[in-house]
């Protein structure tokens, strides 16, 4: 009866009632749009935070480019090239500075070589022994091998030169005036086989179609951990060949050849192993050109604790019948701090022997548990240095307990492909400002955030707009509710007094005053809240569809390629129930509060004083 009478009286002031309904619907709409946008941006930012990572790479800039001369045998002249010159190698420790807020501190990754007789690495080194040969030669006559000269093969120590081949052409094309070679002497040397056609003017020597040229010899390129080359105990040979004399192989230099052969023979059973502190620090994984497709990633705890677990490349896993959970022995015997692994192996650069002239000994021999298998796809970045090659195994850096200081075959400056770190999303500017304060020149940082900064900027703008809408909605709602509380409640003070005098209890008076207003508030808030959610949903849905429609290249936006993430964002949007609920509850709470204050004021008034006064009751 109380509610019915209240509604009846409210409906008899239709202009006021409809105005209230319209205004409250509009303000609820504002609030709802604001609330839904706010929730959407917050959820989106959370999703972005989860799916985006900001990786920085570091490249030491050369102090200068230095020109160097290189003898061009075919042109019989020098050609010139340039090489980077560094006045000093900037240590990684400079990146450990105040205000550097790293998620993963910078790491300068080497790649290790792991050798095991049982490794099957497919056809990576299939032609190794026909390309790289160690043999003893003797010139048919005294010569200076600045051009292809005929020689007799005395003995092949390593490699295949053809079963019946005894005569070959030899040339040292990289030196203008090579050392003379004498017909009565035997020389040992390491050679590569190249096509004769590359030697201008010699194509018609029809007995031969290839020429042997000097390859990496027995010189050592061992480095220490400061980047200084360890002095070779016996020095390097003059031109990559040495005369074989009686008892030569009993001398330290002669034994080096045997060590070299031992090292070369390990190559077809050697795989690259990359130690890191987080999988995403490897740009191949970050860019998506490598992806774990079986098993799982190495966990942050495993990285931190240095657990002996690893990720294995799919093809290597197949060749070696490895599955997640299996154990893989990784006897590590060299560390290269300059290069990244290449398909053909970096050991072609030389550096197979240590400063003592020995093949590098294993410095860490452990069995690793395979936790995941990854596939390698096409390159996504401009430099193939970022890509992983077949057979590469990823391990936690901390799992290598022994020092590699006696096994460093190459050392160089920090390179983008080998030096990277992770910082929190959206902090690139802060990082750069903090770095600039260090006043250290010579390092170039490149950041990859897959478009996070741009998206975040957009989201921040929407976030601000949503806050403004919310604020405006809230203020207008308070004003509207205050106005109509005055019209529906405070102006009805006398009505309350009449009801009191007729025996209404205070709570019945409150119900009588509130019910009609709250019913309108419920209807208006519900319509406005749902309308706002629908509007917001529609607008954002259209924008997302437009983004998917190809107007923008989202190749580097992992979230855009991640249907699960998109679905997650959409789902939240579509189920915008939370936004509706928030708006509805906010409207109702504000309305009840303001109206409650009005009702309280009405009930406090002395009924007799109001009723005995002159004038009509409204």
């Amino acid at each position: 009866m109380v509610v019915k009478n209240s509604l009846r009286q409210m409906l008899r002031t239709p202009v006021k009632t409809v105005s209230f309904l319209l205004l409250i619907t509009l303000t609820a709409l504002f609030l709802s749009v604001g609330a839904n946008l706010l929730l959407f941006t917050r959820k989106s930012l959370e999703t972005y935070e989860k799916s985006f990572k900001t990786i920085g790479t570091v490249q030491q800039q050369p102090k200068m480019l230095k020109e160097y001369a290189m003898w061009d045998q075919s042109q019989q002249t020098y050609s010139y090239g340039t090489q980077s010159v560094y006045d000093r190698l900037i240590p990684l420790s400079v990146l450990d500075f105040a205000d550097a807020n790293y998620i993963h501190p910078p790491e300068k990754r080497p790649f290790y070589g792991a050798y095991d007789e049982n490794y099957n690495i497919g056809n990576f080194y299939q032609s190794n022994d026909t390309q790289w040969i160690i043999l003893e030669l003797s010139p048919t006559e005294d010569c200076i091998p600045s051009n292809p000269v005929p020689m007799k093969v005395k003995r092949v120590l390593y490699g295949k030169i053809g079963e019946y081949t005894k005569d070959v052409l030899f040339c040292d094309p990289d030196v203008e005036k090579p050392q003379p070679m004498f017909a009565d002497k035997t020389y040992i040397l390491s050679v590569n086989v190249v096509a004769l056609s590359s030697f201008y003017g010699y194509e018609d020597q029809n007995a031969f179609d290839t020429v042997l040229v000097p390859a990496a010899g027995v010189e050592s390129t061992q480095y220490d951990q400061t980047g200084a080359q360890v002095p070779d105990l016996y020095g390097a040979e003059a031109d990559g060949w040495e005369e074989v004399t009686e008892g030569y192989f009993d001398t330290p230099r002669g034994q080096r050849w045997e060590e070299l052969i031992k090292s070369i023979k390990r190559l077809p059973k050697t795989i690259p192993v990359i130690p890191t502190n987080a999988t995403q620090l490897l740009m191949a994984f970050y860019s998506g050109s490598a992806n774990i497709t079986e098993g799982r990633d190495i966990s942050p705890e495993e990285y931190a604790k240095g657990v002996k677990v690893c990720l294995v490349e799919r093809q290597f896993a197949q060749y070696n019948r490895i599955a997640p959970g299996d154990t893989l022995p990784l006897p590590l015997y060299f560390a290269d701090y300059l290069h990244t692994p290449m398909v053909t192996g970096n050991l072609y650069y030389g550096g197979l022997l240590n400063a003592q002239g020995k093949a590098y000994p294993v410095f860490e021999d452990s069995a690793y548990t395979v936790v995941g298998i990854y596939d390698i796809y096409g390159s996504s970045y401009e430099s193939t240095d970022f890509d992983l090659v077949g057979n590469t195994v990823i391990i936690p850096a901390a799992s290598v307990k022994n020092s590699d200081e006696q096994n460093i075959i190459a050392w160089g400056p920090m390179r983008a492909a080998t030096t990277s770190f992770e910082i929190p999303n959206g902090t690139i500017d802060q990082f750069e400002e903090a770095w600039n304060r260090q006043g250290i020149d010579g390092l170039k940082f490149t950041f990859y955030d897959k478009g996070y900064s741009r998206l975040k900027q957009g989201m921040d703008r929407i976030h601000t707009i949503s806050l403004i809408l919310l604020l405006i909605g809230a203020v207008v709602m308070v004003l509207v509710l205050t106005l109509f509380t005055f019209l529906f409640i405070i102006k009805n003070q006398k009505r309350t007094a009449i009801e009191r005098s007729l025996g209404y209890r205070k709570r019945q008076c409150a119900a009588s005053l509130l019910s009609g207003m709250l019913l309108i508030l419920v209807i208006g808030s519900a319509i406005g809240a749902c309308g706002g959610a629908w509007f917001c949903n529609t607008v954002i849905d259209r924008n997302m569809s437009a983004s998917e429609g190809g107007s923008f290249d989202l190749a580097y936006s992992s979230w855009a390629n991640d249907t699960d993430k998109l679905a997650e964002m959409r789902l939240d949007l579509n189920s915008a129930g939370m936004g509706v609920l928030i708006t509805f509850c906010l409207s109702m709470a504000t309305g009840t509060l303001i109206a409650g204050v009005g009702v309280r004021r009405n009930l406090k008034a002395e009924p007799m004083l109001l009723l005995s006064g002159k004038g009509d009751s409204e």
Partner: protein
Amino acid sequence: MLEVQNVSYTYANRYQTNEVLHEVSCTFEQGQMYAIIGPSGSGKTTLLSLLAGLDLPTKGEILVDGKLMTSMDRDTYRRDTASVIYQSFNLFPLLTAMENVMFPLQLRGKPMAEAKTEAMKCIESVNLKESVLNQRPQRMSGGEQQRVAIARALAAGGGILLADEPTGNLDAANGEAVVAILKKLAHEKDYIVVVITHNTSIAEQADVVYRIVDGRLSTGAAE
């Protein structure tokens, strides 16, 4: 029977304390019409408010048929026992005359049809024209409005009718008619009718007249 025993009422706020009624004692019996007269601010309306159960005395007691008002549910007392009519009528402006009269009946839980029938009887007893039944108060004359107010009081039943200057806004003819209705209620329907008035001619028609001056009550004829 309504008994007022040594009732004082003090109005106090942050700045002042004002004793509006001072040890007032009087009795109101069934079948009698009482007039309370006195100058403005003498405490007449306050006494009526206490009699209506809208407030409680600061000191003293009011008894309703021998029961202390303080021990009663005063909302129920107002709903079932005492009704008040006012100079300014105090009808619900957005309800029709009929709805106004039905209001106390519905409040007591009467079904709609029954409430309507009873309301009609009350309306008939105050000689209200049928044409105004579906009109809202603002379209009625003062006399009509006061009749509706009396009908509403009758609908509440109870037996106590308190009237605060019931003819203050009426012309002489309508005033007379209203007083006649009140007298009829007291004498024929055994109501206790208490009328607060400045009007001596109304006071003269009362069975008992109380005079209040400065919050003190005395019995006496109207001036």
